[in-house]
């Protein structure tokens, strides 16, 4: 295994987490990780040699958006029960509330969702996100703002009912 392969190996848990944060369920997330790894190795020549993690997350963001576009029109509410699949065993918190949060996240437009996750979960600064996604920082801020308001509205409103498997 060469150096880049070892570095990618070390990043696998982080890649998987980001994939899950963009995906409806674990299978989608695994598919996204696989597609991203293949795209990364196909385009290693295009990597500038710095910030491997940022480069991989950018690839994943783009693939995820394309995938959402091709899946557009798929029923949203029918799959809310899938939220259960993302739940890690033994995690604290009310499972019903967790389902409602996931459902609210699943309603976000893909480009809002990726900005939110890069900022909140991956811990990137706004300017870094702008750089990674090649968008102006104002766009980062407006997507972040819309994502937060949309989640808050959906959590406070009655338009989401968490589906549970009994």
């Amino acid at each position: 295994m060469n150096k880049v392969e070892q570095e990618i190996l070390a990043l696998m848990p982080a890649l998987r987490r980001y994939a899950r944060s963009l995906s409806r369920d674990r299978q989608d997330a695994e598919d996204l990780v696989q597609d991203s790894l293949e795209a990364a190795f196909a385009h290693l020549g295009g990597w500038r040699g710095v910030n491997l993690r940022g480069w991989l997350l950018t690839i994943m963001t783009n693939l995820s958006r394309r995938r959402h576009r091709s899946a557009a029109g798929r029923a949203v509410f029918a799959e809310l029960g899938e939220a259960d699949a993302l739940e890690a065993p033994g995690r604290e918190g009310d499972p019903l509330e967790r389902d409602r949060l996931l459902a609210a996240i699943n309603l976000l437009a893909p480009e809002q969702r990726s900005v939110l996750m890069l900022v909140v979960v991956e811990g990137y600064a706004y300017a870094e996100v702008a750089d990674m996604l090649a968008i102006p920082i104002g766009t980062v801020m407006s997507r972040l703002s819309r994502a937060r308001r949309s989640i808050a509205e959906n959590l406070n409103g009655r338009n989401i009912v968490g589906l549970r498997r009994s």
Partner: protein
Amino acid sequence: MSVSEHDLHAYVDGRLDESRRSEIERWLAQHPDAAAEVAGWRQQNDRIRALFSVDAPHADDARRIAGIASSRRAVRLPPGTGAAAAAVALFLLGAAAGVLGTLGLATAPSGVAAVEVLPAAARASYLVYTREVAHPVEVGADEEAHLVSWLGKRLGTEIAAPDLSAEGFRLVGGRLVPFRGAPGALLMYEDASGERLTLLFGRNEDNSDTGFRFASEDRVQTFYWIDGPVGYALSGEVGRERLERISRLVYRQL
């Protein structure tokens, strides 16, 4: 003091320096509506982070990465062939676009039954992809479980890869293909001599099953049939008798 929404997000995300943060805190103390919204965003952050925590590494990660890396190395061309290879790739892309375009695969022909477009779609996929040397499939047979679950998901119904070893064919892998403007699945098989078959799965909305049908153009022959929500088409150049035998083998397993 002026406070922008940018400041409020930066406050929530811990992106302000100490002095600006105290300023925002003083401002929030006097603006309860904004303070409530900001508190909500903070709580959102905590809950989202709790939702997506990092898993332990998987045991097979190293093998998986090495596999992808080596499959990329295997198709890398020797130096100097770059321009020629690019020309070939462009030609193949053009040919693919031509074939798909001519047969109307790029868009959904409304009002045309799945069974009517199956043989032409199958023939086009067969011609385009079995001639590919470097990338005949998107996902190889070494990841069969992933392959069938992925394609099944795109197709909207579970599929399985039939075992054709009784006829000397092994699974090469599969790929996503367009079928009537929607996702279809293509599996490819190969025998020891390098002869290839393709099995096309396409979504069927019409409420009709069919028996085996046969189509032939030039040397490419196709057996196709509709079974509930899915239309199947097996294409190859192995002679009608053998192709029919393999089709029955497929049919029995699906």
